[in-house]
Every structure is written in C-alpha cells, then in structure tokens.
C-alpha cells in the first residue's frame, strides 16, 4: 500500500481527476458542435492509445486498427439490437474484446515474422478482410449496417463521462504495463530485437501481448461508434480510419501517451474549425500536418511525457 499512495501518485490522481472534472464541465457549457468534437476526440484518443502501444512501445508498424475498431463497433451494435442499456454496452464490449483478441492472435502468428513496411501491408490486408467479412454477414446487416444505436437512457453528457473514464483506465493500463519488467522487455524489442532475444526476452510473446492489448483498446474505442453516430456501416471502417488513428499517434509522438491525448484533441478541433471551409478543408489539414512535422519531426512530444517536464523541474529545484 505504501507504494501505491506515494505523494507522486496522489498528485497525479488529483491532476487527472481535475482535468476530467474540468472537461466534464466544459462539455456542459459548450455548443452541440463542440460537444460532438469532444466526443470524437475522446473516441480517437482511446483508439490511438492502443495503436501507440503497438507502434510506439513494441515498435511494430500496424495499419490494421480499423478492423479492430469495426469488431468493437459491431459487437455493441448487434447486442444493441436488443436493449441499448449500459449492461448491454458492457456485454458488447466484452464480446468485442474477446473476438478482437482471437482475431489479433490469428493475425499475429503469420504476420510477426514480418517487419516494418511488410507488417504494415499485411495488417492492412487483414483489416480489409475483417471489413469485408462484416459486409457479407447477415447478423451485421450487410452493407447497409445497423441503426438506432444510441443509448436508451444515457445522454451525450453521460456518454462523454464514460469515455473520460475509459481514457483514464486505458492510460493507467498502458502506464502500468510499460513501467513493469514486461513493459521494459517489450520496449527492448523495439530498440533491438536481436539483442533483446539474446538477453532472454521471448520477443514474439511480447510483440503479441502489446498487439493484443492495443487491439482490445481499439475494440473498446469502436464500441462508442454506434452510440456516437446512431448507426454503423462497413464503409466507416475502411483503411482511412486506420490512417486517421495513425496520424494522431505520429503527430503526438510515438511512445508518448500525453502526446496522443493532446494530438487527439488537436486533430478533432482542427477538423471542426475547418468545417466552415469545406472546399479547402483537406488542403489546410494537410498543410497543418506537414508544418507540425517539419517543426516537431518526432511528433509534438517525441517520446517524452508531460510528467517528464515536472520531474525535470523537480530535479533542477533539488
């Protein structure tokens, strides 16, 4: 216990809680357009945190995130054909995570022999297979998808709170994983796979673990798509979705969780602001991305965290 309730941990708990409460209140006062922006940001952040674990921590370049998001979305969608209650939402997430883990395991076995670009292409292929499989199944409503997916008795404000809690839990999960011996072993795979294996690390095992956790977070993010948009269709989960998530990870900095959170908000806000200039939206979007990458080639945060800034200050004070 004495390790869990250190001054530092309590400070972070307070800090996190304050930000969440602040966001929750902000959500209450802004217009509907910005509420939508915040929800979209939260959804992308959950997915991007998972992808950051795969790309930034274990160093495996995956482009299959859309497939896992689709599995999560459709699990909830199918369960919601009954009652759209909170209990059913939890059930949908559970089913989604189980299916995602099974699929991710099947993908991991053949593809983890590949590296870099080849792995990206292979995961991209698998993601498309998932999408096309969903498109041709009866239970998922085929190409027209599923509709009437909003919560029965939870409004947007309540859903946003759920998303905030999900983000906090995801960050806690990833941080606790990364800052353990197992996490260090996973990072060593990214650093130098040959050396890692020579030091007694079962590299395939840790690549797979990171992939499974990352894919599960994608499924959890996907679970919110239905309640967010009221309907889902296979076309929403094309490879463009994987790229959207990837952009957030790269922009925020690979390996930096705070970077992912900030970049997620950044992208969502830009998208909303640019809605008024629909003709040149994509051009401006691209220009903003390119300039950011020129000035911060390793992403907004590189591989640093917000916490590093504080601990550096404390060190200097000492």
């Amino acid at each position, binding site marked *: *216990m004495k*390790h*869990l309730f250190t001054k530092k941990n309590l400070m972070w708990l307070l800090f996190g809680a304050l930000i969440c409460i602040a966001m929750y209140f902000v959500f209450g006062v802004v217009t509907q357009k910005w509420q939508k922006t915040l929800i979209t940001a939260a959804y992308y952040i959950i997915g991007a945190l998972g992808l950051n674990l795969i790309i930034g921590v274990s160093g495996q370049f995956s482009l299959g995130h859309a497939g896992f998001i689709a599995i999560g979305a459709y699990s909830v969608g199918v369960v919601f054909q009954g009652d759209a209650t909170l209990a059913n939402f939890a059930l949908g997430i559970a089913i989604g995570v189980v299916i995602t883990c099974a699929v991710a395991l099947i993908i991991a076995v053949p593809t983890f022999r590949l590296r870099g670009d080849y792995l990206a292409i292979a995961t991209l292929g698998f993601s498309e297979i998932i999408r096309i499989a969903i498109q041709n199944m009866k239970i998922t409503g085929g190409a027209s998808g599923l509709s009437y997916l909003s919560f029965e008795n939870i409004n947007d404000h309540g859903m946003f709170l759920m998303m905030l809690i999900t983000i906090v839990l995801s960050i806690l*999960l990833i941080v*606790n*994983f990364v800052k*353990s*011996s*197992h*996490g*260090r*072993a996973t*990072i*060593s795979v990214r*650093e*130098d796979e*040959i*050396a*890692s*294996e*020579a*030091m*007694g*690390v*079962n*590299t395939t095992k840790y690549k797979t*673990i990171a992939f499974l956790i990352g894919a599960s977070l994608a499924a959890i993010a996907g679970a919110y798509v239905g309640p967010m948009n009221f309907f889902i269709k296979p076309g929403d989960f094309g490879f463009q979705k994987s790229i959207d998530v990837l952009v957030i990870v790269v922009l925020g900095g690979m390996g930096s969780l705070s970077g992912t959170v900030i970049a997620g908000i950044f992208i969502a806000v830009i998208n909303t602001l640019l809605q008024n200039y629909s003709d040149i939206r994509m051009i401006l979007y691209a220009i903003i991305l390119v300039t950011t990458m020129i000035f911060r080639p390793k992403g907004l945060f590189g*591989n640093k965290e917000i916490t590093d800034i504080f601990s550096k200050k404390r060190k200097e004070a000492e």
Partner: protein
Amino acid sequence: MAILSVKSLTKNFGGLCANSNINMEIEKDELIGLIGPNGAGKTTLFNMLTGVYEPSEGQIVINFDGKEKDIAGKKPYVITKMGIARTFQNIRLFKDLTVLDNVKIAMHKDVQYNLLQAIFRTPKFFKEEERMEKEANELLKILKLDTKIGELASNLPYGEQRRLEIARALATNPKLLFLDEPAAGMNPQETAELTELIRFIKEKFEISVVLIEHDMSLVMNLCERIYVLDYGKLIASGNPEEIAQNPRVIEAYLGEEI
C-alpha cells in the same frame, strides 16, 4: 566434465560451408580464446552456440548442473535462460534507454511477477522491482558504471558502452559468457583495462568466458586455451605458447613459405 561440448558442428549457407565439423570442449572456470583470420567463421560459430543460427549438423551439449542438454537449434532466449550470455561485435545496446534499464531488461527472465500482477500493481510487483533495482545497481557498481545509471546508453563513451554490454550480459546470470571482439576499436590503454576487467569478472562471477578477438596481446595474455579457426575448420587448439608456434596457425595468418 565439460560444461559445453560441441560435437561435429557444421553450418552451410547454401553452397558455402561457414563451419565444418567443429569439435570443442569448454571446462568450468576456463578462459578460452577463439581466433582466426577475417571470414574464418568465428562469429558464425558464436551465432550457432547462442541460437541465432540453427546448425546444419552436429550437437551442442551443455552440462551446467550434471544434466546434459542438447541446445542445437534452440531459440536464443531459451539458450540465454539456460545460462549462456553474449555480447555483440557491433555494439547492440538498447540505445534510447537508460543504463539501468538496459541491465534491468536482461534481468527480466527471472522476474517473479506476471503481467496481471504488474498491471494491478500488487505488493509482489513492488518487492520484485526493488530487488531488481538493487541487484542492477550492485552489478553496475562492480563494473564501475554506477555514476552513469540515469544516462542514455547512446550517450556513453565507446569504452563504457562495451562495458555496459558486458554488464548487461552478466545481468542474465550466466554460467558461460561469450564475448564477440570486446576490444574492437579500443586504444592500448583501454584494451589493458578490458583485460583486467575480463579476468576480474571471470573470478568474481565464477563463470567460463569464451572470447573472439583479433588483438593478439589481449588473447595471448588472457586466455588459458585457444582455438584457431580458418576457412570454417578448426586448425589448432592449445595454450597460448603452443598456438604462437604452431606452423598451421602461422600459415593461416601470414601465408606459407615458397
């Protein structure tokens, strides 16, 4: 009884025979040198012994605790868990990680908590982390790297990077240590320090050391026994004096008389 016996080990890359019919025996607490001209197959032999390559033929038998085990073709991490560690010819540290983390990663194979215990931060997790932190610090102190604990591995000077590689290999708690050209790129003074260091860790950790080296002053000075490879074949073995006078070794290095 030898702790490592290599029996008629052969490695072919397509039509090229990198190692053919190698026989070696390594006893407990021995310091062995493996020499030979460039391209003789020394690193290939190391790679087979540590599991990076699968041998085409032959056996590699280890015997650390009275039980014989054939490790030929086993995965590198399995072999490391059995008690064989190595360093690399071209330094392969985890560059973006700190010196301490480099060592801790090598200790991972003995960690006593599982993934769930780590995620839920059980008391066992903290106990183990404390133990690893303490042991890593002790090891780094022995190797005189304790002032650099928080530095990134890539920021260390060359000699210290080599030393960190040895520290990291020792952190896996090996009984047999392979050093692939530990003195490469070092000046004479650094080489002399390294010679002392290798002798010291051999005594301190009670391990056998096998090293590949081109620096003859280090090999002749340090090794108790030497194996010589040429064109993938073992051409001589014996103590440093015997090797220095062996006509076949001289021929391999300097060419034959006309």
